[in-house]
């Protein structure tokens, strides 16, 4: 095409043919942005991938639930049948009889996980803010050390931890399970929340400072509300972590039945000769139910886009 500026003639661009080859379902999905449109093959592959992934994730739960409905005798029948015949919720009743302390175990688990989470949040929120906003000597070193610590699991350090707990006189108390649990969850929580807080524009701090607010006022009234989704994520992660970790600490640092958390309590279903699988599964489902409720409640606070409109 010749340059219109040089020849002095204006060549209007012809409207492009509108019939282009978009995906067959394009008309139905026409409100989608082009970048979000996929062909049928792509959809099939995407859903196949999701199905495969979900199968691996959920199969143990499904099987566990089915087992909890079956009578014990049916579990060892050959050929093995997936579907319970004459299934009932009987195991959900008998498990309370077999383990009278079951309710207490659930309470202990929740207590340990909740107190650990609260301790972690109280320590981590200000620490993450400091690491995100201030520059100070040795910061990189401390952050690196946190990263290194978070690579160990508590299990590696059980023997030194045991001696420490004994020296502090904390063996056979709730604290023996709470303190090491919280300690090992702090490093990753700091890293996670620090990354979140670094995304809060520093101009907000400057604006608040210009308006006369103190560091603490700014932290409380500006930073904390904006960081809420990040804090909720950290709370959920910590709670799950604390719930999962308590088994190993309870087993080693606690021998009092009344302080035992749920995972240790479930051991009672492992008899001398046999494992009461159906009740074990029933107890597992009942045991994680309160934790699920707590996580669902927390998740409702996970609202995105809280910084919309702050800058630009």
């Amino acid at each position, binding site marked *: 095409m010749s340059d219109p*500026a040089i020849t002095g003639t204006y060549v209007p661009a012809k409207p492009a043919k509108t019939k282009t080859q978009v995906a067959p379902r394009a008309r139905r999905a026409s409100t989608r942005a082009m970048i979000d449109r996929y062909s049928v093959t792509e959809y099939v592959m995407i859903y196949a991938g999701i199905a495969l992934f979900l199968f691996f994730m959920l199969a143990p739960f499904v099987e566990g639930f089915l087992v909890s409905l079956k009578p014990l005798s049916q579990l060892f029948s050959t050929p093995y049948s997936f579907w319970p015949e004459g299934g009932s919720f009987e195991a959900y009743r008998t498990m309370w009889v077999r383990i009278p302390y079951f309710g207490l175990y659930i309470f202990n688990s929740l207590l340990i996980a909740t107190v650990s989470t609260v301790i972690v949040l109280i320590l981590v929120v200000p620490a993450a803010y400091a690491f995100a906003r201030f520059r100070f000597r040795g910061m990189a070193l401390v952050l690196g050390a946190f990263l290194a610590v978070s690579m160990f699991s508590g299990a590696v350090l059980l023997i030194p931890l045991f001696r420490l707990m004994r020296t502090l006189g904390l063996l056979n108390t709730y604290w023996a399970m709470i303190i090491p649990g919280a300690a090992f969850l702090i490093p990753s929580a700091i890293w996670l929340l620090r990354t979140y807080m670094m995304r809060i524009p520093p101009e907000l701090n400057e604006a608040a400072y*210009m308006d006369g607010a103190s560091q603490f006022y700014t932290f409380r009234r500006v930073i904390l509300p904006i960081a809420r989704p990040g804090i909720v994520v950290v709370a959920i992660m910590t709670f799950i972590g604390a719930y999962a970790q308590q088994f190993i600490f309870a087993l080693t640092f606690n021998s009092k039945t009344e302080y035992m958390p749920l995972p240790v309590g479930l051991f009672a279903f492992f008899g001398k000769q046999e494992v009461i699988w159906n009740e074990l599964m029933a107890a597992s489902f009942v045991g994680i139910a309160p934790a699920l409720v707590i996580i669902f409640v927390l998740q409702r606070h996970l609202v995105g886009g809280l910084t919309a*409109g702050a800058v630009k």
Partner: protein
Amino acid sequence: MGQLSLQTVTKSFGTIDVVKGVSLDVVEGEFMVFVGPSGCGKSTLLRMIAGLEHTTAGDIVIDGVRVNDMAPVDRGIAMVFQSYALYPHMTVFENIAFPLRVEGLAEAQVRDKVGAAARILHLEDRLQQKPGNLSGGQRQRVAIGRAIVRAPEIFLFDEPLSNLDAALRADMRIELTRLHKQLGATMIYVTHDQIEAMTMADRIVVLHDGYIAQVGAPLELYHTPQTLFVAGFIGNPRMNVLPVTCVGVDATGVTVDLEGQHLHVPVTVPAAARAGLPGQRLSLGIRPEHIALAQGAAADGTAHLRVTPSVIEHLGQQTIGYATDDTAVAGDGGEAVSFCFVLPGTQSIRPDLPVALAFATDDCHLFDAQGRAFARRIDMAGLTLPPMADPATGG
């Protein structure tokens, strides 16, 4: 109150000097604009005045008090950030009320003051919305509302309009000027946009590499820039600079040689400096808008040039031609320079065809080899606004 004085204020980041000794007096109630290219230290200077940045050396004095070590609120200063810096989780009302909440003001007073600020900025209908639901212009008004609610003596603005589109920017310029009249407070406004500077300022400070290049009223800077830098920065499109050779000096001006034409430029050269001047290379400045199509033969007091523009922009109201380096007028030493001209109305000229242009030597600026301007012999009274008549004594 709201008188600000900077006394050789300096700022270094490590070994890098960003602001290199700025002295300036800002009169109470003045609209002062800091202008300069990106990275020249405007924001740094403003942040030092605000109290966000420590001053390496020099004093900042507000109403006779040295404020170097005072917090921003104690200085009686409010600032509007380029990025608005609104609190995203608060409503517009709470955003504007924030400084009052910090102060611990009673709820009734907070309501009054926020209401008054919202009225000035036309935000009454938006008070219960979150910043995320507002347009750019409204967000900027909320940011301004948060600044005015405390009734500070000095307002600082750091490129407040640069995130807005052109039409909104023009509206907000007018609104800010109106706000300045209404509040009567001192305002210091940072921008890299010379149009904002020209349209809003009582006085402009042109910053260049951490130094003040020139301070003056907008038209003063336009008509009598003291350096090549100011000449190039103020005015759009920028001033053309043609290399010339001095061939003679007398009390009425300097005669220079431009492509064989001898032009007499009316400037004042101190008697002592005259002797060394002939033979020297100088820079002749002519603004694009002072150039016209040549009519007839060259007359006294006009210069003629043949230029081959490579791009012509027809704006209807104006016709702008650009000659880029390779098609440009031949400079006096044979080297090519770029050249731009603005003609009124629609002119039937075409790119890549030579046009004959003319300009009056009275409109020319002349700069020495160091880029310093020779004082022009012009009657500034005819070119700038008369000083404002004092309403008490006038008429």
